[in-house]
């Protein structure tokens, strides 16, 4: 039974060792979760941040994506940096632009959002090209839809068609489903900064007669007036008749 005794002593010592190991607060074992996986890999690199969080909608290089082209010196000259920060943090409710701030359920920290804002301004803006030009304000109240109709006819109809239902160079922009998914500010952003990557001019237009801030507000009001109170589901059950 000598062997049994020494065996028992051995396993007893082992147990005590294991217990001591855990109880005495050896709390740095490899399995201990990192504070947060993202924070561990926390990056401040603009390229990486943009590619993983924004490229999906705003395009690989900041343009030619389905959402507004951010890689646009005109847009970046018009938009106040604070507004950029606020949009990234809080998103635009009711649209695909979600809140990215951690506190709002997103995945970006305050410094990361700052890195994005500064990165866009440093890389994609070009103050030189717009020097000395009178820029329309980024934000503005909704104007008068009736005057907006006139603005539309002169400045936009040539491309988007007489009623806004589509024309030679642009498609329908008064579709009720489209208007249900876009904010007033996004309409204004497009009207003043354009979508030059897709052939939509900025506020200076194509014919050399720039829109005033008021005209911009009016045409946005005209677009917004096409919003339907209720947007129906698409019909698909049965062909009628």
């Amino acid at each position, binding site marked *: 039974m000598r062997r049994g005794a020494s065996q028992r002593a051995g396993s007893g010592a082992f147990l005590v060792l*294991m217990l001591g190991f*855990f109880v005495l*607060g050896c*709390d740095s*074992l*490899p*399995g*201990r*979760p990192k*504070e947060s996986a993202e924070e561990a890999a926390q990056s401040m690199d603009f390229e990486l941040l943009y*590619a*993983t*969080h*924004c*490229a*999906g*909608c705003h*395009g*690989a290089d900041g343009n*030619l*994506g*389905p*959402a507004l082209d951010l890689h646009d010196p005109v847009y970046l000259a018009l938009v106040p940096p604070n507004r950029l920060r606020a949009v990234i943090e809080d998103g635009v409710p009711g*649209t*695909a632009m*979600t809140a990215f701030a951690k506190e709002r*359920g997103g995945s970006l920290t305050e410094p990361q959002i700052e890195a994005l804002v500064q990165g866009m301004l440093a890389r994609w803006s070009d103050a030189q090209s717009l020097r000395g030009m009178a820029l329309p304000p980024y934000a503005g109240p909704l104007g008068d839809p009736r005057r907006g109709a006139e603005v539309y006819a002169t400045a936009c109809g040539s491309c988007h068609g007489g009623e806004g239902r*589509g024309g030679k160079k642009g*498609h*329908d*922009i008064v*579709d*009720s*489903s*489209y208007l*249900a*998914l*876009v904010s007033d500010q996004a309409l204004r952003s497009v009207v003043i900064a354009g979508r030059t990557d*897709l052939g939509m001019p900025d506020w200076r237009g194509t014919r050399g007669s720039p829109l005033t801030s008021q005209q911009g507000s009016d045409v946005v009001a005209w677009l917004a007036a096409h919003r339907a109170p209720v*947007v*129906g*589901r*698409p*019909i*698909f059950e049965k*062909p*009628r008749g």
Partner: protein
Amino acid sequence: MPMRFATAIAKWLEDRTGLGAALTPILGHTVPRRTASFWYVFGSSTLALFALQVATGVCLALVYVPSADQAYQSLVYLNHGAHLGWFLRAAHFWGSNAMVLVLVVHMLQVFLFGAYKYPRELTWICGVFLLLCTLGMAFTGQVLRWDQDAYWGLGIGASIASRAPGIGPGLVHVLLGGPIIGGRTLSRFFTVHVFLVPALLMALLGLHLWLVLRLGVNEWPMPGRLVDRETYRKRYEEEVQRDGVPFFPLAARKDMIAMAAVVLAVLVCAALFGPHGPRGFPDPTVIDTAPRPDFFFLWLFALFALLPAWTETFILLVGPVVAIGFLVALPFLSGAGEKSWLRRPGSVLAALLILLAIGTLTGLGTTSPWSPLMDGWSATPVPPIYVKGRSALELRGALVLQFKQCRNCHSLGGEGGLRGPALDGVASRLTRDQLIRQVLQGGGNMPAYGKNLSPAEVTALVAFMQTLHPVDEPVARTAAGPLLGPR
């Protein structure tokens, strides 16, 4: 002096309860000599793991808050706030994995050694229900993690239940505590995981152990020695009389070594690999797409991904009934005859095939195509060719596609998840009606988005998808006539 005092107390306790006298014959009962083998330790190892689960589970329940808005936080607190809380969670998680694994090995051993045959049929049936209870614990435990995985697992569970003809909606209601996954769902699962199933498990376990004691440990199967209902019991008695050893300490020693080994293995895994999740707060408004069930359900998950859609309902509903029915019926189908696996090639082959199939499916389940790309929605750009020349509505549709995380499962231009088919060219495969139906009703492993999309979003999404066709191939149309509805 203290030694003598302790002995006195022990004596007093023994005198009043008589438990020692009752237990000694159990520990000392004789078992066939060859069963004192490492082949016979899996049952007790499972028991050890169960004890570990109870211990860690009770500790976890001290901190865990079973309410929809605090469950997640309480786990995060365990991970980062409580001293060694993460270790507790890790031990419970790895313990549950190990318990399922060792239990399956135990069943396989019992099956291959013919131990389910006469007169141990009931022991086996009891074991089948213990397996079901353990899987039930595993599933409900995964739900208590209340993260995105839990949400997904429940979503799948509910959609399976809802397919039951007639009683589907009622079943979903019972499962979720309402028509949707919410706070009541969590309370329900907490109760089931902490009170209901454990109670059932312990009762079944008691019965199981009682039966093992009463009927004796299965003797080592000898090829050619057939089980005969008339003579078996007598021969077993004779063998134990002739060549038996007391269970304690000879056989029990190996059991104890194995028990210590599995528990230690769990603790080491817990220390090295840490707890699982919680992975992401479950946000019911975003259909999240991280369908990663814990590994024991991975094979099921791969199976569903691979099954042709039309067989799915049938297999989902009939499969489990058939499988459980077969396991229960097994000791009656082959209750006598040859026990040795050397003389039962058919059984060995069947066991191997099932293992191989589950192993392969688990492998498939872990490889990437079946699991979505988590950041696909914000990281994979819409290819510019699908942006140029599109209308404002179609562009918004592309945004809905990104935002609703369709890209996590579907690729465009070769980028994105591979769980569902690539959507390039989808318009030449599906008509507008079919596209709408697919989005609203899901099906074939795709979640139904009906409740999560506004009418405008559906219209935009479908308008965008209708532009996805090769230039030279026309859009698919219904034969019935021109397309209807807005636009």
